[in-house]
């Protein structure tokens, strides 16, 4: 029994022994064992022959010189600078669509005189936003490994895009109402795009069906809504739309998807709350919400379509 466990332990030392990685005492112990154990001494021979055979494998000649030309560096730089073409265009369109819808919703919201409910989200949503923006960046970092030296071109592009968008979104945050709505709806777009079909549809419906009155009426924000608010909202909408959207096709992690769906839920309550404040603008808001939901669905199907096209192109 004792001999067997010793045998098992020493057997693991055979390979390091071949490579000269044993201490003097370990080597002495192994040699003593080899002298009495035929199994181990045969295995040592076989392992040694394996190593020799690998060592004697012929080396292939490189098919060409890998010397770097200035053109290669330029080409690489150009490839790294722009995001994946088809997806980039789609995201920009999606962002623009979200911005337009947001503007419509906000104008409706402001003419009605509500908008109190929206300020509630101002504090929490931007934080969520930056978290979402970090997701693509994080995956890219892990992908490029620990050396940090090697960064994949496309990964680079994604990560820089999302980060710059995150920065673009950040200044909007203090703006209060528009920022809150912008980021929340951006979250909704992400939620719709994330899970391929089921979750997306439910997210879209959610923003129509959510009953009003769940949130208590809130006082109007201290900063009076100015005519330029829709403009700010449009900028934010564009930024957040394209920030969140790149996450969607990757369908990152369950937790990320949850976050996005949570954001979608918040987005749904925002207009609903103000609706409870002012019954007069209810029909305007209804229409706006329906348009928003339809646009989100369109974006979602666009993303799915693009992902499919992209996959086919790569394959």
């Amino acid at each position, binding site marked *: 029994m004792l001999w067997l466990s010793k045998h098992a332990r020493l057997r693991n030392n055979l390979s390091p022994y071949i490579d000269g990685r044993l201490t003097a005492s370990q080597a002495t112990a192994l040699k003593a064992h080899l002298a009495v154990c035929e199994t181990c001494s045969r295995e040592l021979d076989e*392992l040694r*022959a394996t190593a020799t055979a690998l*060592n004697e494998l012929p080396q292939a000649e490189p098919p060409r010189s890998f010397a*770097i030309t200035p053109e290669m560096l330029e080409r690489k730089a150009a490839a790294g600078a722009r995001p994946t073409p088809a997806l980039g265009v789609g995201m920009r369109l999606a962002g623009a669509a979200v911005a337009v819808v947001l503007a419509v919703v906000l104008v409706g919201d402001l003419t009605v005189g509500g908008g109190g409910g929206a300020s509630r989200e101002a504090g929490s949503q931007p934080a969520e936003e930056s978290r979402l923006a970090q997701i693509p960046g994080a995956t890219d970092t892990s992908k490029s490994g620990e050396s*940090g*030296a090697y960064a994949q071109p496309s990964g680079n592009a994604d990560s820089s895009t999302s980060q710059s968008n995150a920065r673009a979104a950040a200044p909007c945050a203090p703006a209060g109402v528009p920022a809150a709505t912008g980021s929340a709806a951006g979250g909704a777009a992400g939620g719709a795009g994330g899970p391929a079909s089921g979750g997306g549809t439910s997210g879209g419906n959610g923003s129509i069906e959510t009953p009003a009155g769940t949130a208590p009426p809130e006082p109007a924000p201290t900063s009076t809504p100015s005519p330029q608010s829709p403009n700010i909202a449009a900028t934010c909408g564009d930024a957040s739309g394209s920030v969140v959207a790149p996450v969607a096709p990757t369908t990152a992690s369950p937790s990320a998807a949850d976050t996005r769906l949570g954001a979608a839920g918040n987005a749904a309550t925002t207009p609903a709350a103000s609706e409870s404040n002012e019954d007069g603008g209810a029909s305007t808001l209804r229409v706006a919400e329906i348009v928003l939901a339809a646009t989100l669905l369109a974006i979602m199907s666009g993303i799915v379509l693009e992902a499919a096209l992209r996959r086919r192109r790569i*394959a």
Partner: protein
Amino acid sequence: MALGVGADFDEPDLIARSRQGELAAFNVLVERYQRPLYNLCLRMLVSSEAAEDATQEAFIAAYRAIDRFRGGAAAPGRPAGFRAWLFRIGVNACYDELRRRRARPAASLDQPRGESGRAWDIENPGPALEEIAETAELGRAIQEALRVLPTDQRLAIVLCDVQGLDYAEIAQVMGVSLGTVKSRINRARSRLRALLLSRGELLPSRFRQTSEDR
């Protein structure tokens, strides 16, 4: 100025000049290391086309990141810095390629799968590797056995037995501890031994030969 690969090959100097943006100096390093790096990628990716891409990608990435390379020549506790650093970049390129293959299994439908049909076993052996394998039946057997190993074990054993790196350098390339290197090599070599043994006629003559040499 003569930039030949020979006795006047001064690696730290070439690295220093590459840092200053002298592409010609870096290309001397490329010339020096392209054969081992290409072969490493070839063993990892099996496809000669993929190995070519990974090698080129790695050299370009290395040139861009040369500022981040610390240390010049071999030093105690940090052996042969540049080669390990470069290989690490090459290995990352290979892992990225392997990940890409896993990410789009659809591609495998268009290409004949390997015998074991595993995820990392999608590519058909390229012409270069076929050429190598033809030189010896043993070579073919080894290549097939290597493909059965998990990627980390395959990398460890290729670096050790095919490329001839020592454990410390392998640890540097793989970014793991010496203990991990030791166990990966141990497992990989035992597994290869078993796989080659199961092929029967290929190895006994070799074993006898080695036994007599002893």
